[in-house]
C-alpha cells in the first residue's frame, strides 16, 4: 500500500493501517532476535564475525533490526547467496530447508523493503469475469427461422460471423436417447421412444423434458455431478480405513435438493451455513443435511506430523473446493503467495478462510435445537432414573447387610461348620443350614466362599487364626460339628467388636456432616466395600428384597421401563460443520507457524465491493456471511459459473471451457453475451436449474445432429461454435446404469446407505481385508443399484471405477477426464459384469420375439434405441450363423451377439 492510497483510504482503514505500522517495529525486532539471530549465529558467524569477517562481511555487527535496515544491499547479497545455495559453503553445516527458506525470505525482505507489488484495483475490475453480467440484446441474424429459444440467436449469430451453417437436426430417436441420458443417466424405454416418435404435437419435445425433469432419477444423475465437485466420499481417507458415519445422508440430501429444484442460491447457502439460517423451518434434514459439503472434506493426520499444518491443509481443502467449485476462481495458491495472475492477494485468502477458521468438522444431529434439547433432556433423565434405581438397590443391600451384621457370630459359626463337614467329606448343605439358623443364604454363601478362599478382611484375622486349627481338630458326631470353646470365645469377641463398630456407625450417620469422618475399618471391610461378606451387588440385592422395599423397587423399575418407551425419535447424524468465523493472521508463505499481518475477515476484495459485503466493520466473518456474499446477485461469478457447468454437461464443453477457472489463466468465453444473458435470466427465474435445462434442451442448438461436415470441420475443428452436437462417451455411471437398464437388471430404488461396506462383496485380487472393507462394487453384477450408490473410498479407491475415469475423491473434481486405455477394454471383453449384462439382454429378447430377425431388431432397439439397417441386419445374421456355442459355462451365440452390442461404440457413445 503506497502513501497515496493511504491518504485516500477511509478513516477506519487509515487507523487500522496506522495501528499496524505502530506494531510493526516491535514485532520486527522480536522476530530478528528470536528467529534470525540464532540462525546467523549457527550458520554464518563462524566465518562472518567481527573477528573473522571473511569476504569483508561482518554479520555480527548487526545487533538490532534498525542496523539491519541501514544496509539493505548487503542483505540482498545474503539472500542471493542463500538462494543459490552458495552459502553456507557445501562443506559446512547446512541449515534445514525450512531454516534456509525462513532466512531467505527475511533477507529478501530486508533487501527490497518496497518490493511488494500493489494491485491496481480499478484496472483489475475491468476484467470480464469481474464485471456483473447483464442481459444482452438479441443479436440480429439472417437465418431467422432457425432459432427456437433465445440462446439460438447468439449461437447462430456467431456461426454466421464465421460463415458456418449448422447441420441438420438429429433424428427423434437420437434426440430422445441424448436427452434421456443427459437428464436421468439412463436410456429411454421402448415405450418412451415409440410415444415420442408418434407424437406430432408441437410440444412433444417439451413434454419429454418435463417428464424427465420430474423423474426422481434426475437428482441421481445431476447430484453426481455436484458430488464430483464436493469430493464426496464415504470415508476420511488417511492411513487407515475410517468410515464417515452416514456420509450417504449428504449424498441423498443433494439428490433430493435437485429433485425438488431447490433454488441454486439456497442450495449453496444451506451447504455452507444451513445451521446459521432459519429457513426452511419445518425440515431439519433439509436445513442441515447439506453441511456435509464441508464436513465430509478430508481430515488430515495431526499428532507428530503437526497439528497446525494439518489444520491449515484442511482449511485449504474447504477453500479450494468452494472457490473452484462455486466461484470459478482459484484461491488456494494465495495461501502462500499473492495470486500471480488474478487480483487475489494472500491476505484475501486468510480473510476468506476466517469463515472456516476454528470450525469443527464433526457429526451433527439433523433436528431442531428444541428436539435435540428434548433428546438430551430425556437421555439425562434416563441416566438419572437408572442411577436412582441402582442407588435404591445399593442402599437396600446395605440396610439388609447391616441387619445381618448383628448376627455375624451365627454366620461365622455356620460357615465354619459347613467348611469342616465339607473337608470330612460329609454332607454340607448351606441352604438347609441357612434355613435352620434363619440366615440369609446369599450372605452365608459369601461367608463360605470367604473361608474357602483363606483370605479374610482385617477384623477377622484373629478369629481365623483360632478357626483354622479348630477346623483341623474339630469333632464331628452324627453329622454335627462341635464348636471348640476357644473358637466360641473368639467369635464372641469379634461379635462385640462388630457391635461396637455398628454403634459408632449409627452415631456417625446421625452427624450432620457424616462425610467428615469415614466409616470404621470394620464396617468398611464387612459391609460397605465392594465384594465384602455382608455386601450385595444390584442384582443380588434385588433378589433379597421383600415386602415394601420390593414393592417400591418394582414401581421404580416399571416407571423406568415406561420412561424408556417415551424415547423421542433419535435424529439422523452425519459429518457436518459447526463454528468458524474467527479472524486469522496471514501465514507467511503458507506456514502456519509463522504468523504475518492480521487479515481482516471478509470476502475477496475484488468481489466484495460488488456484493457490498462490508465486513471490514466487524471482526467476524461467519459461514453465513460467506454464503450470502457468494449468492449475492451482484456477485459476477456465481450464476455464470453454474450456468456454464450445466452447459458443459449438455454440450460436452462449457462456454468457458475451464469450468473452475474464470480467471486470467482460464479460457475466455466463446459466447460471452450468451453466457451473460443466460446467467441473468437464470437468476431472474429464481435460480432454477430445471428452468435452465428446459431453456437449453428445447433449443435448436441442442437439437442438432452429430454428423461431421467437412467445411465446418475445417473452419472450427473443435466445434466451439456448436454447428453440430459432438458425440460424447458415456461416463462411468451412465454407462454402467445404462447397461443394467438394457439388460433388465436395474434396481431403481432411491437413496439409502452406500452399498453395505461390511458385505464381503467382490474379491479384489489377492488383497485380504481390502475387499471386505469396500463391499459390492460397480463391477459386481449382482448389484443392480445405480452407480451413484456405490461406496466411495478415499482410503482404497475402487480400481474399476478409477479405470473408467471416476475422479479422485480427495479433491474437488471439475470435470471427468476421458481416457481410453486397454484395461478398460479388458473389462468390457472379459468382466463378469459385462458378461452378465449380455446374458440379461439375451434373455430379454428371447421371449417376446420368435424369429431371428425380430429378435435382433428388438436387441437393436433396446441397446441403441433404433432399428438396424439392411447392412447391419445382414452382418448380424452372418455372425449369428457363423458363431458357435462354446458349450457349458460358455456364452451362447445370442449372448455373444448381445455382448458385442454392449461392447460396441454405438452403445458407449451418445450422439
Amino acid at each position, binding site marked *: 500500500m503506497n502513501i497515496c492510497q493511504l491518504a485516500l483510504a477511509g478513516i477506519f482503514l487509515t487507523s487500522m493501517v496506522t495501528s499496524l505500522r505502530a506494531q510493526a517495529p516491535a514485532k520486527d525486532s522480536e522476530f530478528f532476535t528470536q528467529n534470525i539471530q540464532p540462525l546467523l549465529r549457527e550458520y554464518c558467524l563462524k566465518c562472518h564475525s567481527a573477528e573473522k569477517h571473511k569476504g569483508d562481511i561482518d554479520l555480527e555487527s548487526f545487533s538490532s533490526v534498525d542496523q539491519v535496515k541501514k544496509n539493505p544491499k548487503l542483505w540482498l547479497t545474503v539472500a542471493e547467496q542463500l538462494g543459490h545455495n552458495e552459502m553456507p559453503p557445501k562443506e559446512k553445516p547446512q541449515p534445514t530447508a525450512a531454516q534456509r527458506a525462513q532466512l531467505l525470505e527475511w533477507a529478501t525482505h530486508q533487501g527490497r523493503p518496497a518490493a511488494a507489488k500493489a494491485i491496481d484495483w480499478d484496472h483489475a475490475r475491468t476484467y470480464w469475469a469481474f464485471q456483473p453480467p447483464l442481459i444482452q440484446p438479441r443479436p440480429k441474424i439472417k437465418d431467422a427461422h432457425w432459432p427456437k429459444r433465445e440462446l439460438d440467436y447468439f449461437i447462430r449469430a456467431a456461426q454466421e460471423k464465421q460463415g458456418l451453417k449448422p447441420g441438420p437436426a438429429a433424428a427423434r430417436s437420437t434426440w430422445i436417447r441424448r436427452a434421456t441420458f443427459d437428464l436421468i443417466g439412463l436410456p429411454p424405454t421402448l415405450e418412451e421412444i415409440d410415444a415420442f416418435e408418434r407424437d406430432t404435437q408441437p410440444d412433444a419435445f417439451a413434454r419429454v423434458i418435463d417428464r424427465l425433469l420430474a423423474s426422481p432419477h434426475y437428482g441421481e444423475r445431476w447430484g453426481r455431478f455436484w458430488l464430483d465437485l464436493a469430493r464426496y466420499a464415504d470415508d476420511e481417507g488417511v492411513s487407515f480405513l475410517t468410515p464417515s458415519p452416514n456420509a450417504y445422508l449428504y449424498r441423498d440430501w443433494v439428490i433430493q435438493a435437485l429433485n425438488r429444484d431447490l433454488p441454486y442460491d439456497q442450495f449453496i447457502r444451506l451447504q455452507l451455513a444451513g445451521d446459521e439460517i432459519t429457513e426452511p423451518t419445518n425440515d431439519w434434514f433439509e436445513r442441515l443435511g447439506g453441511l456435509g459439503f464441508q464436513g465430509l472434506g*478430508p481430515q488430515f493426520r495431526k499428532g507428530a506430523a503437526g497439528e497446525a499444518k494439518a489444520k491449515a491443509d484442511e482449511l485449504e481443502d474447504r477453500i479450494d473446493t468452494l472457490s473452484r467449485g462455486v466461484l470459478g476462481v482459484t484461491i488456494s495458491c494465495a495461501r502462500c503467495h499473492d495470486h500471480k495472475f488474478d487480483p487475489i492477494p494472500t491476505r484475501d485468502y486468510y480473510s476468506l478462510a476466517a469463515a472456516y477458521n476454528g470450525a469443527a468438522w464433526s457429526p451433527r444431529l439433523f433436528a431442531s435445537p428444541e428436539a435435540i434439547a428434548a433428546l438430551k433432556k430425556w437421555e439425562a433423565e434416563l441416566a438419572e432414573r437408572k442411577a436412582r434405581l441402582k442407588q435404591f438397590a445399593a442402599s437396600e443391600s446395605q440396610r439388609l447387610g447391616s441387619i445381618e451384621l448383628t448376627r455375624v457370630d451365627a454366620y461365622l459359626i455356620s460357615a465354619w461348620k459347613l467348611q469342616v463337614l465339607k473337608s470330612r467329606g460329609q454332607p454340607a448343605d448351606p441352604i438347609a443350614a441357612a434355613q435352620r439358623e434363619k440366615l440369609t443364604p446369599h450372605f452365608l454363601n459369601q461367608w463360605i466362599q470367604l473361608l474357602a478362599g483363606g483370605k479374610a478382611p482385617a477384623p477377622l484375622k484373629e478369629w481365623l487364626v483360632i478357626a483354622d486349627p479348630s477346623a483341623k481338630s474339630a469333632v464331628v458326631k452324627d453329622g454335627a460339628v462341635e464348636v471348640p470353646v476357644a473358637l466360641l470365645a473368639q467369635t464372641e469377641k469379634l461379635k462385640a467388636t462388630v457391635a461396637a463398630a455398628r454403634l459408632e456407625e449409627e452415631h456417625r450417620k446421625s452427624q450432620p456432616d457424616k462425610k467428615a469422618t469415614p466409616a470404621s475399618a470394620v464396617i468398611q471391610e464387612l459391609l460397605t466395600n465392594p465384594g465384602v461378606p455382608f455386601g450385595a451387588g444390584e442384582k443380588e440385592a434385588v433378589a433379597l428384597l421383600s415386602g415394601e422395599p420390593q414393592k417400591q423397587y418394582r414401581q421404580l423399575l416399571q416407571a423406568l421401563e415406561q420412561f424408556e418407551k417415551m424415547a423421542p425419535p433419535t435424529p439422523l447424524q452425519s459429518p457436518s460443520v459447526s463454528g468458524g468465523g474467527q479472524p486469522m493472521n496471514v501465514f507467511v508463505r503458507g506456514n502456519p507457524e509463522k504468523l504475518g499481518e492480521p487479515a481482516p475477515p471478509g470476502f475477496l476484495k475484488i468481489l466484495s465491493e460488488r456484493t457490498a459485503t462490508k465486513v471490514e466493520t466487524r471482526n467476524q466473518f461467519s459461514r453465513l456471511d460467506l454464503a450470502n456474499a457468494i449468492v449475492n446477485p451482484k456477485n459476477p461469478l456465481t450464476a455464470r459459473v453454474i450456468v456454464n457447468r450445466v452447459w458443459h454437461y449438455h454440450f460436452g464443453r462449457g462456454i468457458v471451457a475451464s469450468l473452475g477457472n474464470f480467471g486470467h489463466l482460464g479460457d475466455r468465453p466463446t459466447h460471452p453475451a450468451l453466457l451473460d444473458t443466460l446467467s441473468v435470466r437464470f437468476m431472474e427465474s429464481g435460480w432454477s436449474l430445471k428452468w435452465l435445462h428446459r431453456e437449453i434442451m428445447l433449443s435448436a442448438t441442442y437439437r442438432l445432429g452429430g454428423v461431421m461436415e467437412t467445411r465446418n470441420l475445417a473452419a472450427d475443428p473443435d466445434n466451439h461454435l456448436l454447428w453440430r452436437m459432438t458425440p460424447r462417451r458415456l461416463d462411468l455411471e451412465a454407462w454402467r446404469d445404462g447397461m443394467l437398464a438394457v439388460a433388465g437388471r436395474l434396481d431403481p430404488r432411491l437413496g439409502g446407505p452406500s452399498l453395505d461396506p461390511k458385505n464381503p462383496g467382490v474379491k479384489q485380487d489377492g488383497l485380504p481385508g481390502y475387499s471386505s472393507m469396500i463391499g459390492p462394487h460397480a463391477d459386481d453384477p449382482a448389484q443392480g443399484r445405480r452407480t451413484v450408490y456405490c461406496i466411495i473410498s478415499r482410503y482404497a479407491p475402487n480400481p474399476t471405477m478409477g479405470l473408467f475415469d471416476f475422479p479422485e475423491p480427495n479433491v474437488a473434481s471439475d470435470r471427468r477426464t476421458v481416457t481410453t486405455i486397454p484395461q478398460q477394454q479388458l473389462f468390457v471383453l472379459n468382466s463378469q459384469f459385462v458378461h452378465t449384462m449380455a446374458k440379461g439382454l439375451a434373455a430379454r429378447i428371447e421371449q417376446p420375439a420368435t424369429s431371428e430377425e425380430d429378435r435382433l431388431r428388438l436387441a437393436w432397439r433396446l441397446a441403441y434405441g433404433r432399428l438396424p439397417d439392411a447392412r447391419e441386419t445382414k452382418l448380424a445374421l452372418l455372425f449369428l450363423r457363423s458363431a458357435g456355442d462354446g458349450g457349458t459355462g460358455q456364452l451362447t451365440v445370442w449372448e455373444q451377439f448381445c455382448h458385442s452390442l454392449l461392447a460396441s461404440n454405438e452403445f458407449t457413445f451418445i450422439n
Partner: protein
Amino acid sequence: MSLREALARCGHGVGMLGLAGLLGTESHAGTAASGGPLALKPPHFPAKAKRVIHLWMNGAPSQVDTFDPKPLLAKYAGQRPEATTTLTTENNTGGLMPSPFAFKKHGQSGLEISELFPNVARFADDLCVIRSMQTDVPVHESSNWMMFTGSIQPNRPSYGSWLLYGLGNENDNLPGFIVLGEGLPVNGPSNWSSRFLPGIYQGSQVTLPRVYQPQEVIPHLHNEHLSSANQRRALDFTQQLNQLHKDRWGSENAFNTRMQSLELAFRMQTSAAEAFDVSQESESIRELYGLTGPDSNFVATIPGQSTVDRALFGRNCLLARRLVERGVRVVQIYCGKGQPWDTHSQNTDGHRSLARAVDQPIAALLQDLKQRGLLDETLVLWGGEFGRTPTTQGADGRDHNHYGFSVWLAGGGVKGGMAYGATDQWGFRATENPVHVHDLHATMLHLMGLDHKRLTFRHGGRDYRLTDVQGEVVKGILA
C-alpha cells in the same frame, strides 16, 4: 497388427458384405500409434535411466547396522552425548548402542557394508550409498507419503505417476507403474495414488501368492466364457459394428481410439500374462533369485510385525526384472506387508532375519540386470522412509530417525562404489551434504531425463511439481 490387418485377417465374410471396400476408404483406422495419455513423450534432455525399480524396506532399516559404519558407537556405548539427546524422535531413547554387525570394505572402491548384506556387498562397486538422507518427521505414514509423493499429507501424486505423466509408457500391453508386495503396506494405496493427475497414472498393485495363474494377474485378463477363437470372432463382429457406426456418424477420433484400444486389450491377454509367467525362467535363474534352493523356505519373523517370505520377495525381484525388460516404467517392491523393518525392539534379531530374506534376491536382481545389460538404464533404489536411532529404545530396539539415514542407488546413471554425504560421528544427524527426499526426487527425475522444475501439472489454479518448491539435483552422485 493394425486394426485393418486384424479385420482382414480374422473377419471372414467381410468381403461378402462389402465391408472391405468400406474399409478401403477409411483412412483413420489403425493408423495412429496409440496417442493416448500413456503415449511415449520425449524427456526434457537425454535420459540416463529409463526405468525405476524401488526396493522398499517398509518400516525403516537402521543405517548404523547396514550402510553407515560408526565405529565410535562401540567406544561410547551406553553414553548419552548431547548431540543425541537434543534430537527428538518418536519415542524416548537411551544411550548409544553399537551395531553388533561387523563392517568390511568391499570391491575396488572399498565401500563399507555390514555383514548383513554379504551378497549385495558383491556389487559394492555398483552402489551409490547416500548416507546423509533427511526427511521431515519421524512418523511412518507421513514419511511414506514424503518418499512416494513428496508431501507429508496424502494429497499429492506419487512419483511413479509423475514419471508416467512425464514420459508415458514403453509397453502398450502392461500398466506402466506396478507395485509388488505381499499385501497392503502402511498407508495402503495412497502410496501409489495419482491424486489429481489422471487416474491412468496410478500404480497397479499386484499381490501374488506363491502359486498363481499368470492370466489372472491383471484384472479381467482372462475370458472365462469364450474360447480364444470365439472371442476373436465376437470381437470381429463388434469391430464390424463399430465400422458401420463410423460410417454412419463419421470418423471421430474417439471412435477410432476405442477401436484400437479393443485390439490392444485383446493382445494384452496373452502378452501381459506372459510377462508374469516366471515358469518361463530357467532353473538357474529361479535358484539365483531364491525361488528354489537351500534357503527358499526361509520366512523372516520380526516380533510384532508381519513376516517376510524370502521366496516371495525373490519372486517379486524376478518379476521386476521381467517387467522392466518389457518396458514398464516404475516397479516398486514392498518388503512384506505392514512395516516389517520397524524394529523398536529386538533390532539385532530383526535386522538379521530381514536381511537374510532380502540380501540374496537383491543381489540376484543386480546380477541379472547387469548380465542382460539392463542395469545401465534401470535405476535401482533401496531404502525406507527414514532411518533408525543410534541410541537404544528399550533394551534392544532402535527408534525412528528422520535426521539422518541411508539409501542406496545403483545403475541408471549414478556413480557406483561411492558413499555420498555423511552423518555425525554417531550416525544420528546428516551433517555433510544433507540430501532431503525432495533432492532425491529431483535427482531421480533428472536421471530419467526430466527437469523437476519443468515437470508440472496445473491443478486448482497452480502448477504442481513432485518437489513442490524444493529439491536440488544431487550432482555429486551423477556418473
